[in-house]
């Protein structure tokens, strides 16, 4: 058992970084708090934590001294892999009493693991959107057009995000590109309204939407509403991009 063997402030510094990373990569608040407390408990310390959308406040205590820190939550891409592995790491620390240096090594390995290769994501997401078109009653021609529209929209999103452009602008531009490509379906005798409707759906921010509801239901109303507000703004950006296309082609859709 590592009870009190590790320095209080070293453990606090690690837990602050760990919790901020979990919040940044799209994990709902109660899981972040549970995992952070679990790691603190494994070292024999009590963890108190307040979570906001852009920062968190963490205090670690033993019988005599507290150690506190306010950390910024970084903006990171959503990662379910980090969600799974970091949560499992907290249990491993709790059950196997990992020393802090080994814990940090495992944490660094998890967060530096490469994500799925972008071209593979592009292919899978485009197939997904084409399937979505089929689920809404689109025909094979519409599916092909939606596939190509998604390739164009998502490719633009990946490139713009990698260049560090503001993500609202990225969402507007990607929705515009995908819906403009999908509007070529108006040339053909096909289900063009379904093609247009589904072309932008790969952008729907499902993770903050659902995490927002979970947070609110679990009593973390501030972070829940912050996540829902973030999701609503992104949905408005998608609507702006789609509206711009519809503005040009509306007469052919009526």
């Amino acid at each position, binding site marked *: 058992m590592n009870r009190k063997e590790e320095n209080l402030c070293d453990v606090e510094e690690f837990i602050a970084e760990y919790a901020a990373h979990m919040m940044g990569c*799209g994990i709902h608040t109660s899981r972040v708090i549970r995992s952070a407390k679990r790691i603190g408990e494994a070292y024999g310390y009590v963890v108190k934590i307040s979570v906001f959308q852009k920062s968190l406040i963490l205090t670690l205590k033993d019988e005599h001294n507290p150690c506190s820190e306010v950390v910024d939550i970084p903006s990171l891409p959503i990662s*379910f*892999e980090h969600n799974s592995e970091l949560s499992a790491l907290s249990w491993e620390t709790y059950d196997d009493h990992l020393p802090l240096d080994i814990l940090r090594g495992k944490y660094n390995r998890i967060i530096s693991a490469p994500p799925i290769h972008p071209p593979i994501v592009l292919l899978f997401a485009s197939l*997904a959107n084409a*399937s979505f078109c089929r689920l809404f009653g689109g025909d094979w021609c519409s599916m092909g057009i939606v596939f190509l529209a998604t390739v164009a929209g998502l490719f633009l999103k990946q490139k713009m995000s990698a260049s560090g452009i503001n993500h609202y602008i990225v969402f507007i531009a990607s929705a515009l590109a995908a819906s403009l490509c999908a509007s070529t379906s108006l040339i053909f005798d096909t289900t063009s*309204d379904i093609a247009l*409707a589904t072309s932008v759906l790969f952008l729907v921010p*499902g993770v903050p939407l659902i995490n927002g509801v979970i947070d609110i239901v679990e009593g973390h109303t501030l972070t829940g509403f912050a996540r829902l507000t973030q999701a609503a703004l992104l949905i408005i950006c998608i*609507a702006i991009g789609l509206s711009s296309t519809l503005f040009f082609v509306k007469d052919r859709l009526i």
Partner: protein
Amino acid sequence: MIAINILSDAFFAAIAGIGFGAISNPPLRAFRYIALLAAVGHACRYCLMTFSGVEIATASLAGAFIIGMGSLWFGKKVHSPMTVLYIPALLPMIPGKFAYNMVFSLIMFLHSMDDPVEKMKYMDMFFSNTMVTITVVFLLAVGATFPLFLFPKRASSLTRHKI
């Protein structure tokens, strides 16, 4: 023919679940369960709507609840939190056509401000589509999250390897 329709619905929902999941970088071991949950959930909603005449909101709630329960079951097998499995599996049930009609009717409403009949038609269309979209998305989230409150102990220890 009915069986083919159900299987085709499940098949395309599975592909949609895998693809939308890939955007959020899930662990590789979770993909097959995401596909399975997306297929079962969407096929359930399809059957309820097509053969039982249930409307989209209730059918989505039922589909989402099945996905939530499934993610609780499979989460232990792949040591992944429920959200990792159920969020990608829910995405094929997003009411995209209603969301599109919402945006389309807003544009047409603004375009027909001088024609009271057309204006009212598009306003009605906007509100009905908005209500359906918001209700379905909310019920999807609630339905899938509900098992988390029914079985909180299991839900919080899915990533634990030690029994």
